[in-house]
């Protein structure tokens, strides 16, 4: 009897330990780190709820500054230190080659999932045959314009940068003479950071001036079209754009726009649903179109952005983390994200989705914009991309702030990039 009792206690304890151990392994608490732009935190919570309910795991968002340059610095440090606190990283489309060693290979885990996505995006996240991150949304900027103001002053939606400069000036002057003192023609991202690389790449490319470093690795930035593009852009700060635009990132530009103080804005799709929010002064008053072209060139350019999710090599909950990554990159989460945040899906079939077409009518129209998007030269320049980008944005920022002419700065940039390239990227 006694021994039986002992055994039963023992077996009870054993089951207890097993069940505790088991439940600990099955209910992981994940940490997901991401930049917090706009309403990213609320969106994330809505998004992961079904996954949390289905799996029993929980995930906490660790919010980071909006600047992707700042995020990269912090992630780089954490990963170099082998930080096990963060399980998943939301990574920018340009980071894959630089952080590839620190993330696990998702090729096997996403075998069924990757064919659903745009092949070019999957390719951008593949480094030496290793799928570094799964795409969760893509980004291609557009020109936001105030249709009410253009109508009021009888101006067309501009199709070239030259026309935009002219229209912005006309509307701005007319509005100011009517007492609307705070109005500006055009807001964009002019701070010296990755965002300026995106903006300036669009100007240069849409003028037919190449894409800084071509896919084959040639440095092409010093050419007459690129110079013309920057010369036009450098006339904006202080005339149609506030002088402070040289310190603006996405959110500062949106701040001016959404309070109704700008005629045009260059921004990513996330600003569309925020601009139509109930607290927005421009709700229902604006439309979006493709970015203009310039210098007689006929195709416009939109810098390819986009965010992906990668699983840290140092995560202690890799299984759960992979499950979350698959969920976030999958059709269900991408659809929700498109509906609540107007982010562009990376899954091709969602562009034909009826709910999305009804709720976010701009999204299906975006497919063509996005298919013609221009990538930043992160693939040819590999681990040196950040430095290439920093040199490019510095040259552009100097030009915009009147420190040297476009021709001088681009010539110097070409020389610096040649030096950086050395015998090969």
């Amino acid at each position: 009897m006694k021994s039986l009792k002992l055994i039963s206690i023992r077996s009870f304890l054993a089951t207890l330990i097993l069940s505790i151990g088991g439940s600990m392994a099955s209910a992981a608490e994940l940490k997901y780190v991401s930049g917090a732009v706009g309403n990213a935190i609320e969106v994330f919570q809505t998004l992961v709820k079904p996954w949390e309910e289905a799996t029993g795991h929980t995930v906490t968002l660790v919010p980071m500054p909006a600047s992707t340059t700042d995020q990269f610095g912090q992630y780089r440090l954490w990963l170099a230190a082998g930080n096990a606190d963060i399980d998943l990283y939301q990574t920018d489309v340009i980071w894959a080659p630089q952080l590839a060693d620190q993330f696990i290979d998702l090729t096997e885990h996403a075998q069924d999932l990757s064919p659903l996505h745009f092949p070019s995006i999957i390719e951008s996240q593949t480094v030496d045959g290793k799928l570094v991150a799964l795409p969760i949304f893509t980004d291609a900027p557009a020109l936001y314009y105030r249709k009410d103001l253009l109508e009021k002053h009888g101006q067309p939606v501009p199709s070239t940068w030259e026309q935009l400069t002219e229209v912005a000036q006309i509307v701005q002057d007319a509005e100011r003479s009517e007492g609307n003192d705070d109005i500006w023609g055009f807001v964009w991202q002019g701070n010296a950071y990755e965002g300026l690389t995106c903006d300036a790449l669009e100007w240069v490319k849409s003028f037919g001036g190449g894409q800084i470093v071509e896919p084959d690795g040639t440095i092409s930035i010093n050419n007459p079209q690129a110079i013309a593009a920057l010369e036009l852009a450098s006339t904006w700060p202080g005339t149609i754009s506030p002088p402070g635009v040289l310190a603006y990132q996405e959110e500062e530009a949106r701040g001016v726009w959404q309070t109704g103080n700008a005629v045009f804005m260059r921004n990513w799709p996330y600003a569309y649903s925020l601009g139509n929010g109930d607290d927005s002064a421009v709700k229902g008053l604006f439309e979006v179109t493709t970015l203009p072209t310039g210098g007689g060139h006929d195709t416009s350019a939109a810098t390819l952005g986009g965010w992906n999710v990668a699983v840290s090599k140092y995560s202690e909950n890799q299984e759960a983390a992979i499950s979350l990554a698959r969920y976030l990159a999958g059709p269900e989460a991408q659809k929700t994200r498109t509906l609540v945040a107007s982010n562009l899906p990376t899954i091709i079939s969602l562009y034909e989705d009826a709910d999305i077409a009804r709720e976010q009518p701009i999204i299906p129209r975006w497919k063509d914009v996005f298919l013609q998007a221009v990538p930043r030269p992160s693939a040819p320049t590999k681990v040196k991309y950040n430095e290439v980008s920093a040199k490019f944005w510095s040259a552009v920022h100097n030009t915009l702030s009147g420190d040297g002419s476009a021709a001088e700065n681009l010539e110097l940039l070409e020389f610096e990039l040649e030096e950086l390239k050395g015998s090969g990227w």
Partner: protein
Amino acid sequence: MFNFSKELDLEAQRRRAAFYFLAPMIIALFCVAAWPLLRTIYFSFTDTSLTNLYGGEWIGFDNYLQRRELSSGRVIWRGTLVDPAWWNAVWNTVRFSVISVFFETVFGLGIALVLNAEFRGRGWVRAAILIPWAIPTIVSAKMWAWMLNDQFGIINDILVRIGILERGIAWTASIDTAMTAVLIVDIWKTTPFMALLCLAGLQMIPRDIYEAAKIDGVHPLKVFWKITLPLVRPALMVAVIFRMLDALRIFDLIYVLTPNSKATKTMSVISRENLIDFDKFAYGSAQSTLLFAIIAIFVSLYIWLGKVNLSGEGNQ
């Protein structure tokens, strides 16, 4: 004889005890100060990258200065010491440090003189004046960034309303005003610290000297130049060295307040950029080492100059 050896014994014992008391401090300092410093200096002589911290190989002085001969026979120099971006950062830092420390010292001393006088509510004023110093730099930098904003900023709003400006200035964005904006915020933030250190110095000056001067009918300005300033000088020197050390490694304020342009990039900002953003960990380490060397030079120069002056006064 016996006595003497006993004294020695006691002396040795005391020294040993002192060492035991100091040991934890020395170990802690070694771990948090000396070791990281030595590692950084070591990294600067290698080709370490952040993705592989332990795989760097010794490359000598190449990160500092490197002579390369091209196939055409042309000789080019590489490395931090010939990098114009680095020297621009050095110039920015030195300019920032000298100007900010100068104004902080002048304002700090002025405020300290006022606070040293007897008046009602002095305790309150002393506490209140410390507020800017107590706010974390990131918070005050963000706060000032909004106050200096060209569209929504209160400073532009006030200046426009009273008619000084026609349209708001983009303080932090324009390369002409970015450094001024940084200086304004830093001086606002750090003057209280200087005032406090100066006040401590002022309170150590014996009151009877002032009484004697008063009885002799010396002009108050002369009292300041001949009594207050020389006597407060040692305290002021310590304060200036502290501030100089701090100012030369300025990072957070500039990083948060201004765009990452060459108008305000300092030594710390540029070395962080190389260390982390770019794949040039060793190069950034070389810049950090140079930053350390420059600070060391400044401090020893200042102490040396200070000593010369002090001994000159002693001869009078």
